């Protein structure tokens, strides 16, 4: 469970990476994606106004694709999945992030 006092806002630009990685594991609907990010990161909190615009943006860029399906509780839900383009993009973003994080860590840990 996330603690509202300790949650961080997602850094701009990293939300795309988080969504793409989540969908790389399995296709998921918006709620599921948000839950996954919240639970796995233990840090981030998904508001409607950040998640869904990002999903629409990724969809318009052709990195993810959406489809209406019957969800687990017999309700209709919009499932998103990664496209091939999205997969390629994910790899790029991951390596970029790793380089960035490594660079920041090096500076922070330097004496």
């Amino acid at each position, binding site marked *: 469970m996330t603690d509202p006092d300790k949650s961080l806002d997602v850094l701009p630009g990293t939300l795309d990476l988080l969504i793409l990685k989540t969908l790389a594991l399995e296709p998921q609907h*918006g709620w599921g994606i948000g839950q996954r990010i919240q639970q796995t990161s233990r840090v981030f909190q998904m508001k*409607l106004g950040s998640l869904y615009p990002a999903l629409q943006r990724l969809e318009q860029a052709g990195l993810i694709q959406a489809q209406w399906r019957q969800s687990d509780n017999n309700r209709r839900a919009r499932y998103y999945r990664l496209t091939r383009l999205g997969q390629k993009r994910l790899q790029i973003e991951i390596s970029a992030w790793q380089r960035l994080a490594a660079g920041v860590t090096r500076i922070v840990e330097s004496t």
Partner: protein
Amino acid sequence: MARALSYLREIVNRRRRRRETHEELLDHVERFVAQELRKGASESEARRRARLELGDVLPVAEELADRRPGAYLEALGRDLRLALRALSRARAFTFVSVLLIALGVGASTTLFTLVERVLFRPLPFPEPGRLVRLFETSPERGVAHTGVARGNLAAWRSEARLFEGLAAGYAMGRTLSDDQGSEVILTAQFTCDLFPMLGVRALHGRTFSNQECRRAVYSGAAAPKGADPVLVLGHGLWTRRFGADPSAVGRTVQLERRSFRIVGVLPNDLWLPEPGVQAFLPWTLDEELNHDQRYTTAIGRLRAGVTAAAAESELDAVAGRLASERPETNRGWGIALLPLHEHVTARARPVLLLLLGASGLVLLIACSNVALLFFARGQARSRESALRLALGAARWQLLRLGLFEAGILAALGGALGAAFAGIALAWVPRLWADLPRRGELDLDATALGFAVLATLLAALIAGALPAWRSAQPDPREAFGDGPRTTASRPTQAARDALVVAEIALTVVLLAGGGLLVRSVSALQAADSGFDAEDVLVAPIFLDAQGYDSGEKSRVYYAQVFERLRSLPGVVAVGGATALPTSPLGPDFARPVWPAEAGKHDHNVKQASIRIITPDYLDALRIPLVEGRGFSAGDGPNAKPVLAVSETLARALWPAESAVGKSLIVDYSTSGTYPYEVVGVVADVRFHGPRSEAQSAVYFPHAQRSYLVLNVAVRTKPGAPPLAAELRRVLHEIDPQKPAHGVSRLSDLLGATFAHERRAMQLFVAFAAVACLLSGLGVYGMLAYRVRQRSAEIGVRVALGATRTRVVRYVAGEAARLWRGACSWGCSGRWSAAAF
């Protein structure tokens, strides 16, 4: 391409996407709520937390919708619907504005089409740029353009290399009879190459064949030769008299007592050589090739690539050769070429351009009025606009709404205006009978294109300025108790500028109208040398077949005059072969010279030949300057006499009286004889007040009986109209000889400046409309202002202002506007006067 398709798909599916997004977001919220409920919270608590942690659904949905393609179009569509609703609520405003714009667009489109079709569009013949009209010219005799003599034309035809074709013809009034009755029509006889040269094909039947042209259908008074000659009907005559029936082709009609077979109908009216030609007859140039009777109209087609100047010089060389071969007839005569298009449209040009300008001004004034209406409306909505601005609307969203309203009004007004123009163009041929090319008027793509442009201009003027002003409301108004009492200063300045412009334009129109009225009155009052009031004119064309001797025609006319004189109210009855301003009758000039001096280059003059009856001068009240008029004593066996016009007398005998002198007239067909001058007649401006006084010699009808005579009947002022009686008398004497339309001489005189008069009438009409419009505009604006300032005025009154002071205060506003407007208007007037 696929991207474009998916783009389009997105726009079409917008509403569905909106619903789906809503569903998706609500689903998300529901799952969160369910999760909270599972954790033990109450329903309301769960929802509260959802709102807190997730945010509100609606703004997110809006934002998602805004980011999808088509958001912009949807906004435009919304504004459009809003504008439509707003307009349908303000019915009076919409109605008046649409009507105003329709008026402006309709008037300007009509005149634009007129100008474009008549003045600028090439004539409706193939390669019309190569068609020219040929004239003979003699600068040393002061003759700029005159008809061509047949012999000269034949010479040109055989020798000119730079012409593809040269056709010639002339027009004459003739009596047409069939079982429907008789009427006199203007017919044209042309050589057979006219129709092929112009590229005119018959609508039904055919035009002339070469054999038909080899026969002379009419050659002077000679008897006809050969079998049934043929006739081609003009479109107007076919529609009017034969009911546009294709079976008219092949019928036989009588023309001057001779049978003619109709072989074809033309697709349009062909007004050559002059306006009003109704039918065509074949003609040949092979007979009676004289070189000095210059009345034929010659039309030619230049070879491809040949300039008019080159052709003119080629023909000048031929003329030079003729001049040396035949000095008596051809010395000093050259050729002039005029493009056919120019010749046809020259007279109508200034009138049409003037009216185009006037219609443009009316358009501007009408649009300014609509703009003022918009301003008033914007004023009423200023509070709403300020509120919208305060709530976060972008300025240009406010502007967009105003522009849409203006656009819708302009579109409606423009469509209505185009309809008006279509109707007006259909009426023009009926109202403006002598407009050249009036058969070619209709609303086509070019005209509609202009209508669209005019509509855009209307939208711009009427809408842009007020819309822009309405998008700058003072935000403080949103919090006040109501709209401001007066508009902000920039808005007021804009409004004032509009009113000033309106008034200035109206002043220009009024001034122009005044100038035209003045010039037309001057023309009407001008002295043309005769008195046109109370005179009826009836041209009579006797034919050679029925009246084959001079005696018969003398008897006929004697009968006519006697019967006419006995009608009640008749003061004098006279006749002349050619009457001033009357378009029918032989009008030609012959060389004359004094007998004693002999014929030398310097004393030969060209004089128009007129054959008159003794009472003619009385009938038209043409003064006799010296000597006497003709009397019964100047009969066929008496001494040959004539009278000369004043100018001619002075030119021939500058120092002495002309009476008693002997004048030789070269009247080639009947020979060259001396005549005694018995009188000098005052000058007559033959073609109306703007023409020059002509040199003329007058012969007594008894001595030279001509078949054609224009009968003029002068009645007492106030006498009952005699036209019907006149017709009856003529019918009784010879039913086959109706007069060619009985007209009033004053009408014929007026017809010589008909173009100017028409221009004046239309211009004054435009000016009146403009006056009305700007009057309404100014009144409306002032009334609105006063109403708005009623609070302020109330305060003034409370503080002790008297009624007069208040009135003066309001009037002062109006005066300020007038001063500005008049200074603008007057400068416009000077430029109009220059034109």
